[in-house]
């Protein structure tokens, strides 16, 4: 890596990074502006737009719904995704290869197509309540990430440890919980974080699955932007970014960020 990099390339890279981070800095500034419209640089400093988030009931409600979807959807995806990932690795010979293709379908099929199809089949035809349809959508959204990340973690797991435990008399189910799961803990945490962030930021699936009184934060943000152009949106964005930074710090401390970069 000792080859020198041409200054023009470095200059270009610096520009790209300014392009990537500048707009986010501007949101921070705009959120602090003491004006009723969005502006940068901020004119006067105030935190009242942050207070405003809690004063608008629609934001309060949708933050709760978003958190519910992210936690529950990820939780269900882990419960059904971990056994599937285990089966794909442990019983690779007996399961058809098409099964792993099936598990990537939620990534391959455009989210917006999944959302529209769920609206038609699940909400309208089957009459499933909006909240549950939304949960189905979020579970489907994160399931492939769970299966992929846990599979990657299982791929480096030495299954002979498990066989040793079983041959020493440990029942298979107990072995799974005492031997296999603890060994793929970092994969499970990574899957959880990736899924949580994917779910909380989702627009395209939630778009069709929100209904009267039930919406997620990103959808509410879109709706709010159509009517108002005040700094509240910027302050919500700042809160979301601070949350992201917090998650990144936790990931860095526990697993190292290399996991997310994959």
């Amino acid at each position, binding site marked *: *890596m000792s080859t020198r990099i041409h200054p023009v390339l470095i200059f*270009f890279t610096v520009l790209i990074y300014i392009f990537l981070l500048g707009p986010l800095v501007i949101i921070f500034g*705009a959120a602090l502006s003491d004006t009723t419209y969005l502006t940068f640089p901020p004119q006067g400093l105030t935190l009242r737009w942050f207070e405003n988030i809690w004063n608008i009931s629609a934001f309060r409600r949708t933050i709760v719904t978003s958190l519910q979807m992210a936690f529950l959807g990820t939780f269900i995806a882990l419960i059904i995704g971990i056994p599937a990932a285990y089966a794909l690795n442990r*019983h690779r010979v007996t399961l058809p290869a098409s099964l792993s293709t099936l598990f990537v*379908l939620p990534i*391959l099929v455009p989210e917006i197509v999944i959302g529209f199809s*769920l609206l038609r089949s699940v909400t309208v035809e089957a009459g499933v309540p909006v909240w549950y349809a939304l949960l189905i959508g979020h579970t489907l959204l994160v399931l492939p990430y769970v299966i992929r990340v846990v599979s990657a973690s299982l791929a480096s797991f030495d299954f002979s440890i498990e066989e040793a435990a079983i041959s020493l008399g440990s029942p298979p189910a107990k072995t799974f919980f005492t031997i296999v799961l603890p060994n793929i803990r970092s994969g499970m945490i990574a899957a959880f974080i990736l899924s949580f962030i994917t779910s909380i930021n989702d627009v395209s699936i939630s778009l069709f699955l929100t209904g009267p009184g039930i919406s997620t934060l990103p959808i509410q943000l879109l709706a709010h932007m159509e009517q108002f152009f005040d700094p509240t949106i910027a302050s919500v964005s700042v809160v979301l970014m601070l949350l992201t930074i917090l998650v990144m710090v936790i990931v860095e401390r526990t697993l190292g960020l290399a996991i997310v970069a994959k």
Partner: protein
Amino acid sequence: MKRLAGWMLATPATLMIALLLVLPVAATIGMTFGAPGAGTWGVAQPYADFFTSGFRRRVLWRTFEVAGWVTVISLAGGLVTAYVVSRCPPRVKSILIVLAVFPLLTGVVVRSFAWLVLLGRQGMVNNVLQWSGVTDAPVAMLYTQGAVIVAMVYIFVPLMVLVLVGVLENIPEDLLQASSSLGAGPVASFLQVTLPLAVPGLIVGAVLVFTASFTSYATPHLLGGTRQMMMGTLLHQQAMVAFDWPGAAVVAAIMLVVIVATVLLMTRLARRMNPMTT
């Protein structure tokens, strides 16, 4: 017995995807075929309706155009950045990677919103343009194709950088040393060693960005509005504003065909272009 165990463990996830994804999407596609006797085109009537509408044809073409530009610009910007990042000293490299991951983890709505602030009539870009005397009156930049492309490039460059850093790091260092010890300069080494080895990864990055921008909703909605409708916003408009569900289903089916065809063609191409396999 073992066979059964494997199936049982995979059953919940398999059922979930089969019943709640494959079936509903299949039903949507089934909906795109009209009754056999209806209209001049029979079963294909809903598709004929789509392609005979100048407006919808333009939306489809615009979606290809925007996704194409976004892919090309992201590839160029991402490749240069990834090249520099991958040759930085480890400490700088990890900082640069963290700085690219951060926007990626920030939601699409927030990142599109940033451009709404920047490109508005009172936005910073207009302020700078007027202050520097380039224009006297604010330039209308929102709701143009350019605004949509810029915001989407902004959204997808971090993804491209991360994918390509991974690709460039996987290229064995001794190949580059061999090429420079044989007298190749950095440019020749890049063009004759690095680039050919990076092609499969470039294709993967391009497919990711193309499919994501082809199907995106939030960015074209916020920065393009109804004037710069793309397939995603058209699907939503047909389904939720016009309540034309067969029309929306046709849009969904066309999106699906474009995505699946792109992924299949490009993965095949990536395999063929991989110099390590032949």
